[in-house]
């Protein structure tokens, strides 16, 4: 059962990560790929607070989310002021910089990773309780982001994303909104990091590099950008599929290339055949360009 629990927890965490990443790049239209670094910040902060400073784990996990939130505001403030594309450059720089720092600071465990991290719930209430905790956090995150995206603030986000100039002309502050979107999405990634680290109890900087960014991007794109269910389906499918493949007794020479081909093919197929992903976004969240294209077709 521990295997099923571990997969269930990973799926729940990837749902949080993909949903919050979708909130930033899909709903917010902010181009960033640094989501895994906020996941890392949450994980490292929570682990170090609990292990080295004696903070109770139930406080260390939200503290990890808070530290990710503060870091995201620190990145967003200067980079969003210039132009949207600069957020992408700043986010890559931030991701590489933070990972280099982690690799070179002795108290983070360096490049060899952090061990002896305290566990949470599993010793007292059982692994099932931790699964319930992770799943509850995933459901809570999805509902929160859905509530925001479908409410009045969501309509404002849609307007900001489609035409920032017109949005500003209406007297709304696009900068504040962008920072709020980026901070909320990043803090949820930090929270996921905290949940991860107190179950698996080992982290190393290599787990949060650019490859992780591309995995999250694939989950969002394959699942469906700007939809509630898209990132959920994408995260679950792309976490379950590699596991399912390993149960087929294929020789390693076939298994390795098969996994690579599968993921590459999925992205290509979805880009050309179904760009809207498995679950298409609702009408309101169709981009302006898509609406114009639809209108032309009609």
């Amino acid at each position, binding site marked *: 059962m*521990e295997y099923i629990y*571990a997969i269930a927890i990973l799926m729940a965490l990837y749902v949080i990560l993909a949903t919050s990443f979708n909130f930033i790049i899909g709903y917010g239209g902010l181009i960033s790929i640094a989501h895994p670094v906020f996941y890392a910040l949450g994980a490292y902060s929570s682990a170090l607070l609990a292990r080295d400073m004696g903070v109770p784990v139930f406080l260390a996990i939200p503290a990890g989310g808070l530290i990710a939130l503060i870091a995201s505001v620190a990145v967003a403030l200067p980079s969003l002021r210039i132009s949207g594309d600069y957020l992408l450059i700043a986010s890559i720089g931030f991701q590489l910089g933070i990972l280099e720092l982690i690799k070179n600071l002795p108290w983070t465990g360096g490049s060899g990773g952090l061990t002896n991290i305290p*566990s949470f719930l599993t010793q007292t209430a059982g692994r099932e309780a931790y699964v319930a905790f992770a799943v509850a956090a995933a459901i809570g995150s999805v509902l929160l982001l859905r509530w925001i995206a479908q409410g009045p603030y969501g309509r404002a986000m849609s307007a900001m994303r489609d035409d920032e100039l017109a949005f500003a002309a209406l007297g709304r502050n696009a900068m504040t909104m962008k920072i709020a979107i980026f901070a909320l999405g990043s803090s949820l990634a930090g929270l996921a990091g905290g949940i991860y680290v107190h179950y698996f109890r*080992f982290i190393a900087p290599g787990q949060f590099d650019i490859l992780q960014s591309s995995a999250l991007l694939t989950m969002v794109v394959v699942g469906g950008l700007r939809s509630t269910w898209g990132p959920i389906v994408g995260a679950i499918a792309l976490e379950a599929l590699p596991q399912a493949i390993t149960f087929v007794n294929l020789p390693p020479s076939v298994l390795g290339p098969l996994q690579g081909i599968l993921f590459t093919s999925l992205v290509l197929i979805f880009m050309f055949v179904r760009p809207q992903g498995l679950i298409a976004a609702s009408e309101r969240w169709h981009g302006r360009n898509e609406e114009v294209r639809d209108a032309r077709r009609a």
Partner: protein
Amino acid sequence: MTLHRRTLLGGIGISALAVPVARAQSAAFRFGLAMPLTGGQATYGQDQVKAAQWAIEDINNAGGINGKPLAAIVLDTQADAQTGIQAATRLASVEKVPAFVTAWSEVVKAVAPIANDSKVVELSVGANSADIAKLGDYVYTTFPLAAVDITAVARYAATTMDKQRAAVLYINNETGTVAAQIYRDVFTKAGGKVVAYEAYDPKATDWTGTLLKVRMALPDIIHIQGLVADTPQVIAQMRQLGISQPISSYSAIYNPKLIQQLGPAANNVIATSLAPGVDNSPAVKAYVERWTKEVGREPNGLPYTQYLYDAPYLVAAVFKSLDDKKIPITGENFRKEMLAIRTFDLPLTGKLTFADDHTVSKRVYLMRVTDGAWTQLAVVD
């Protein structure tokens, strides 16, 4: 929704395929083998798995364990912590093996909580991080940790080779940082001076800047602590830049491929080996001949494959002892019995004794490339 249903049915179908395989192996004594079969380290991982599979074949051809076969459940770790965690979790909870063999320091450390929580013995066979000794009750290594061979090569350079000035160049990851510190400390303590101490990024493909700094420091010897993939490239670039001093490294580069890759540039490269070579053991000679005959080449990382060949023999000895005593096969019992036996006489790496700190100590063979071939330079006890 159609796509959804198909995916679900596909998943069920795939899971169903695995059931007969698991049932067929249920009568055997089973252990896990979590190694990199894909990814950047696969070249080495696959050869190591092949060595372990040959050992299982040989054990079973010789009658198995009290008439029952030995079987390994092989899973891929990609030498990656997260994939390793999933593989180890599956071995402990789905396959329910009492012990599993794994390697690569990051994976060994990442899966340690699973071994300790599930009370399943984790045997690290090939990783050399110093932290491995402190990972918990159920984590043991059959491979000497970095302190053993790095101490030997550093002391040999400072004393026997009489080198006064050493440059240390290391990869900035778990493999490099700890071992580089050991080299620096031992070399300095033996009377030498470390004149350059430079790290390089694991993703680096050009080392010109770092190497020029090393050249400027005018060392008598250069120690490189890198990975099997990058060290030959670093040496090649070093020679291209006119750095002709002797180079030392550790067991990862003791590999016939190094000579093929570097050609004459490999001359005067010193590596360590923690297992006897073809000149020291007829069994190793026969083993290497088997590789040449069956695979058409020598194995990548010969000493590592020797340890992997020996791992199933160790596991089989513990299974046999448990079976003889009619003790149930569980991880807890496996650990107790392994420690009760404690000393194992293994075919390709010789005698192995688990120390109280979960580590092992071995003889270090210093190998040097001379005229395009690895030759034994010295043996350090």
